[in-house]
């Protein structure tokens, strides 16, 4: 029983991170019909920037903020310089470009920051709370993880629901041509969309890294989990991405806890294939018809 509770709690905090990562994928997919396979590598890169700052004596929070700002800039630059020419073109070309960025960022990080494992600090304790006589797998850092993901989601929801900028961004995502006719600077909105998505991705990178080891490939599996979560949620809906993230986190935590951690990525593959074949529009759609 205690094991089950711990695995569940662990799954929830991992799931929150996958939810953030999936949300970042969905933001870009909705606006540009591109899956940013480089998102994990970009997040890894900004996390290393944070680590460099922290190791040079700055506080965790300076590193944290710097990584998010770096994500914002990186996302905008990537969209403006590299992705813009392939937007709206053959989908294979865009996929290949994001994969090229993936490889390039990973190699660049290994050159600049080293290819070895380095430990990344956590701003809060990593010892579980005690309930009665048990220590549960829920730490002050888990609270921070879930809290910061919640804050980001609420902030994004508020942006999209209640601001003019958010309305323009959503309009650009749904119909570029009509938005242009209504005077919306669609190009800027797409750049902003990639920038915000990269901030959310960077947050996911920082949270995965907290209290763990980082190396240039540490986000590889997270891309897969985030993708699975996004597809579970139907790829179009931010809310679906969040739910998909939590489900993925829980499912993979059970697989890891009861079957073996080596099988986690394969289980993710299994979930992905099952969803794509049975409910291609995601778990929460009313219609089950779509070409994937």
């Amino acid at each position, binding site marked *: 029983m205690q094991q089950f509770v711990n695995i569940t709690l662990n799954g929830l905090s991992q799931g929150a991170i996958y939810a953030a990562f999936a949300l970042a994928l969905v933001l870009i997919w909705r606006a540009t019909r591109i899956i940013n396979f480089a998102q994990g590598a970009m997040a890894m890169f900004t996390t290393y920037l944070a680590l460099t700052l922290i190791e040079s004596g700055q506080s965790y929070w300076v590193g944290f903020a710097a990584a998010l700002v770096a994500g914002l800039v990186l996302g905008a630059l990537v969209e403006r310089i590299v992705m813009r020419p392939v937007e709206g073109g053959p989908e294979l070309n865009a996929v290949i470009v994001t994969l090229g960025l993936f490889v390039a960022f990973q190699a660049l990080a290994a050159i600049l920051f080293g290819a070895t494992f380095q430990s990344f600090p956590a701003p809060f304790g990593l010892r579980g709370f005690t309930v009665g006589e048990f220590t549960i797998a829920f730490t002050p850092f888990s609270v921070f993880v879930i809290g910061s993901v919640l804050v980001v989601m609420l902030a994004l929801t508020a942006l999209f629901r209640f601001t003019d900028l958010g309305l323009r961004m959503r*309009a650009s995502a749904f119909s570029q041509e009509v938005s242009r006719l209504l*005077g919306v600077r669609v190009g800027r909105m797409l750049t902003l969309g990639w920038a915000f998505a990269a901030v959310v991705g960077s947050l996911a990178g920082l949270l995965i890294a907290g209290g763990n080891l980082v190396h240039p490939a540490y986000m590889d599996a997270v891309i897969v989990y985030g993708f699975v979560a996004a597809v579970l949620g139907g790829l179009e809906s931010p809310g679906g991405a969040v739910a998909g993230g939590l489900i993925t986190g829980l499912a993979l935590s059970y697989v890891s806890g009861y079957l073996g951690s080596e099988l986690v990525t394969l289980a993710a593959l299994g979930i992905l294939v099952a969803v794509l074949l049975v409910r291609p529009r995601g778990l929460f759609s009313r219609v089950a018809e779509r070409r994937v």
Partner: protein
Amino acid sequence: MAEPRGTLDIRGLSARYGPVTALDAVDITASPGRVTAVLGANGAGKTTLLRTISGLVKGADGSVLLGGRDLTGASAETIARAGIAHVPEGRGVITELTVEENLRLGELLGTARRGKGGREHRLDTVYEMFPALEQRRRREANSLSGGERQMLVIGRALLSAPEVLLLDEPSLGLAPRIVAQLFALIRDLVDREGITVLLVEQNARSALSIADTGFVLNLGRVVAAADAASLAGDADLRHAYLGF
């Protein structure tokens, strides 16, 4: 020669899709307070004309002037901000957004333009004009009927305080009764607000009933230009190009 505000002047406009000439040296002038109809069969180049004016089709020759300001080759965003509102064929409702969000997009553009002396329109006046929209303001726009969608896009265009309104086949897919109401509304708007309307229609009879002037396009060329009454009265022309 200083052009009055709101005059849309199209001079020698030519556009091609690959080897096909879609527009061939088209000259059209549309004036404030008047409905200018552009008529012709399917494939005559009417939609291309509007898309070229609003900057969606690039690489055309010739010039597009709004009140003397040269908008040739400008981006669609810039042209919209200059005061040309294009209501595209198929209506251009953003179906994933709510009715009110669609309208707010028009309002945002209007606010951005107001500094330049655009006429002010408020959401309330649009809801007053189209009560059906107010009832559904929080619904997603894909729940609207064809007629309601047409009201939505016209309301949205008005909120952007345009000098020129480009309407592409507004009657398409609407019941005759709705079409009559719609055209009466357009006429009324022009008379009250003094905006310039360029109305592209296949339904030539209805269009000419509210238009002041008309141009007939065939295979990308202007084959006739006259006031609406004399176009409607020209039997040969009607048989050859207008189908009524």
